[in-house]
C-alpha cells in the first residue's frame, strides 16, 4: 500500500521556517567556531566565571537549536531562539562589568559581538516584521555601545563604523528571513487556492462521468429492455426476461456501489460497468472482455477497478495524443485483471511529474485501498503506456 506523507495546513510556512532555524543555528555555530580563538585570547581580560557561563550558553544554544530544527515543534524552536536573544543581550549589557581592564589592549572588539547575527536572526524568526527591525536596531545599538565602552570609552569613530556595518550586514539577512517567511505563507495560500480549484474540477468531472455511465446503462440496458419487451413475441419472451434480469442486476450493482462496499455483485456487472465507463469517456477506445459466468465480486473492487480504469483512460486521452487505445478486462475465480494500453507518446515512468499525479493517486493509491488490489505502470517515451490493474481474491 502506498504510504502518503501526512501534511498539515501551512506546509510551506512550517518547512521554510525550519530551514531558517537551521540557517540561524548554522550562523551561530559558524561564528562561534571562527571566533573561538578570539574568545580564548580575550579570556584574560574578563571575569573567568562570567566568561565561562556566557561562552557555554552562547556556544551551546546553536547546537541545541540545530539538533531540534528539523523535528521539534516550532513553539520550542521559538522558545530556544528567544532564550538565545536574551542570553546575548544580557551578555552584551553585563560585559562592561565583567571586563577586567579599562580597554581591551589590542583594540579588537569583544568576542561576543561576532555572535550578533544569530541573535538578530533569532529575533526575525520569532517577532513580527516591525518587531524584527526594532530588535535589530536595539541589538546593533547595544553592541555599538559595548564596543565604545570596551575600547575605553574614548573614541566614537570605530563604534559608529561598527554599528553602521553591523546594521547593514544583519539587515541583509533579516530581509532574507522575512521575505522567506512571507514566501512560505504566500505559497500556502496559493496552494490552498489551487487545491480548491482542483477539488471542484475533480468533483465535477467525477459527477459528469457518473452521469454518463448511468446514461449508458439506461440506454443499453433499460431502454433496450423496455423496447424489446414492448415489441416481443412468444419466441423472444425468454430473451426479454434475460435482458430484464440483467438490467436489474446492473441497477442493483449501481445501487450497491453507493451503499455497502462489502456486498457482492455478479462479475458481468463489473464488465458492464467498465464498458460503460470507458464508453462514456471516449467511443474510440476498444474494449474487450470475455463474459464471466457465475462469479461474484465485492462492490468495493468493482468501484476501484472502474475508477482506476476511468483515470487511466482519461490520462491516456489527455497525454497520449492521437493513439490506439485498448482496454481488456478478465475476471476469473482467482481475481481480476484490467489492462489499459495505448501506443501514444509515453513518458519516463521513473520520473513521474506533478502532472502525472493522477496515475499515482487515482490509480495506484486507489487500487491499494482495496484488499488484494494493486496497479503497475509501464511507460516508455515514444512507445506508449501500459497500466495493469490487479485484484487477487483473498482466501474464501
Amino acid at each position, binding site marked *: 500500500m502506498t504510504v502518503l506523507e501526512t501534511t498539515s495546513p501551512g506546509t510551506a510556512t512550517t518547512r521554510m521556517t525550519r530551514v531558517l532555524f537551521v540557517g540561524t543555528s548554522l550562523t551561530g555555530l559558524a561564528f562561534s567556531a571562527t571566533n573561538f580563538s578570539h574568545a580564548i585570547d580575550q579570556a584574560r581580560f574578563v571575569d573567568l566565571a562570567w566568561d565561562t557561563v556566557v561562552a557555554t550558553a552562547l556556544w551551546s544554544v546553536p547546537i541545541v537549536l540545530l539538533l531540534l530544527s528539523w523535528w521539534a515543534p516550532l513553539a520550542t524552536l521559538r522558545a530556544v531562539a528567544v532564550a538565545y536573544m536574551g542570553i546575548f543581550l544580557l551578555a552584551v549589557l553585563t560585559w562592561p562589568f565583567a571586563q577586567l581592564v579599562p580597554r581591551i589592549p589590542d583594540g579588537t572588539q569583544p568576542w561576543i559581538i561576532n555572535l550578533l547575527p544569530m541573535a538578530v536572526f533569532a529575533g526575525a524568526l520569532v517577532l513580527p516584521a516591525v518587531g524584527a527591525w526594532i530588535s535589530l536596531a536595539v541589538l546593533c545599538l547595544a553592541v555599538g555601545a559595548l564596543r565604545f565602552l570596551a575600547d575605553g570609552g574614548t573614541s566614537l569613530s570605530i563604534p559608529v563604523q561598527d554599528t553602521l556595518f553591523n546594521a547593514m550586514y544583519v539587515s541583509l539577512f533579516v530581509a532574507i528571513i522575512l521575505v522567506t517567511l512571507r514566501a512560505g505563507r504566500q505559497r500556502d495560500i496559493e496552494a490552498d487556492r489551487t487545491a480548491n480549484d482542483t477539488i471542484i474540477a475533480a468533483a465535477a468531472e467525477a459527477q459528469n462521468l457518473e452521469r454518463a455511465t448511468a446514461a449508458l446503462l439506461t440506454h443499453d440496458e433499460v431502454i433496450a429492455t423496455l423496447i424489446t419487451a414492448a415489441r416481443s413475441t412468444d419466441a423472444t419472451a425468454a430473451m426479454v426476461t434475460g435482458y430484464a434480469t440483467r438490467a436489474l442486476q446492473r441497477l442493483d450493482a449501481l445501487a450497491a456501489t453507493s451503499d455497502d462496499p462489502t456486498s457482492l455483485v455478479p462479475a458481468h456487472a463489473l464488465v458492464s460497468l467498465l464498458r460503460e465507463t470507458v464508453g462514456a469517456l471516449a467511443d474510440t477506445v476498444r474494449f474487450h472482455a470475455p463474459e464471466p459466468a457465475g462469479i461474484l465480486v465485492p462492490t468495493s473492487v468493482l468501484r476501484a477497478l472502474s475508477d482506476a480504469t476511468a483515470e487511466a483512460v482519461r490520462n491516456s486521452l489527455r497525454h497520449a495524443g492521437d493513439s490506439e487505445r485498448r482496454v481488456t478486462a478478465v475476471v476469473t475465480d482467482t481475481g481480476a485483471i484490467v489492462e489499459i494500453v495505448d501506443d501514444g507518446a509515453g513518458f519516463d515512468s521513473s520520473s513521474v511529474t*506533478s502532472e502525472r499525479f493522477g496515475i499515482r493517486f487515482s490509480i495506484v493509491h486507489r487500487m491499494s485501498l482495496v484488499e488484494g488490489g494493486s496497479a503497475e505502470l509501464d511507460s516508455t517515451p515514444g512507445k506508449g503506456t501500459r497500466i495493469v490493474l490487479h485484484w487477487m481474491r483473498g482466501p474464501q
Partner: protein
Amino acid sequence: MNNTGTVSVTEILRITGSGARTLLATFVIVHLVLAVATITEVYSPLVTIVAIVLVAAAAVVVTLPAAEPLPLGRSLAIVAVVAATTLAMDWNIEPGSAPTYSSWHLGANTLVLLFLGLRGRSGLAWIGFTIMAAITVVWTIDTGSTNLLGLLPNQIGTLLVGTLFAIGLRRTSRRITELHAEQAAIASVESAARAAAEERTRQAAHLNEVARSALERIADGAPFSDAERESWIRLEATVRDSLRAPALNILKLTEAADNARSRGVEVTLLDDSEGAATSETDRETIAAAIIEQLDEMDSGRLIGRVLPKGRGQLATILVDDGESTTRTDVG
C-alpha cells in the same frame, strides 16, 4: 517554482525586487561611508574610490533581473571585480596598523559573492572567495601582517551559511511543491470519490424509481398484456427524455408528457444547453410553458427544446397539430 519546474531562489527571495534595491543602496552607502572614514589610512585614496565604484557595480549586477543561474558572463565579471579589488585594496592598506574598516572590501566582496551563490552560482562564488583568500594570504606573506588574514574566518562563515541556506531553500521549496501537489491530488481523489458516490446514489434512486417495477414485471416471465406493452413504450419515451433533456427532468413535466403520450401525442424533449447552468427558475419556466401546451393537445407532435446559452431565449416549443406548425419562444 518557475514555469520550467526548477526552484528559483531569486524569485523566492525577490533579489531583483524593490526591497532588494533598497538594501543594495544601503550596502553601497554604508561601504562608501566606511571607505571615506578610513580614506586617510590607505596609501592611495584613488584606488579606494575605484574599488568602491567597482564593488558597487558588482552589487548592482548581482541584483539585476536575469534567469537563474545568473548568466556566466556577469558571474565571471563579478568574480573578476572581487579579485581586482582585493588585489588593489590589500596593498593599499598600511600593514601592521590596528584593524579598521580600511579593509571594508573583504566584507563587501563576501556579501556580493554570497548573493552570487544565492543566484545559483555557488561554485563561482567559492572560486571568487578562494581567489580573494589566496591574494590576502600572499599579502600576509608579503607584508608579514596578519591583520587581513584574521578577518577571513568570519567571511568564510558568512559565505558558508549563505551557501547552505541556498541549498536548503532550493531543496525545501522543491519538496513543498511536491507536498502541495500531493495534498491537492489526495483532496481531489477524495472529493471526486465523494461526488461520484453522491451522483451514483442519485442516479440509482432515479432509475429505480422510474424503471425498476417495469423491469421486475418483465423479468418475472409472465405473458405481457397490450396495456403493459403500451405503458413500456411510454416509459421508454420518458426514460429517453431523461437522457436527451436532463434539464427538463421535472416530475410535473414527466407526468404531463406521459399523459399526452397516452392521448396519442408524439412528444420529443431536447436539451441543447450542454449542461450549462440553467437555473432552477428557468427550468421551471420552461417546464410550465411545455406543460401548458401539452395539456391542450390530444394529438399531433410537440418538440420542446432547451436552447444553448446566449441565444436570447431559454427554449422553443414547436407544436404540429397536423394542419399547421406554431413556434413558441420561452424566456
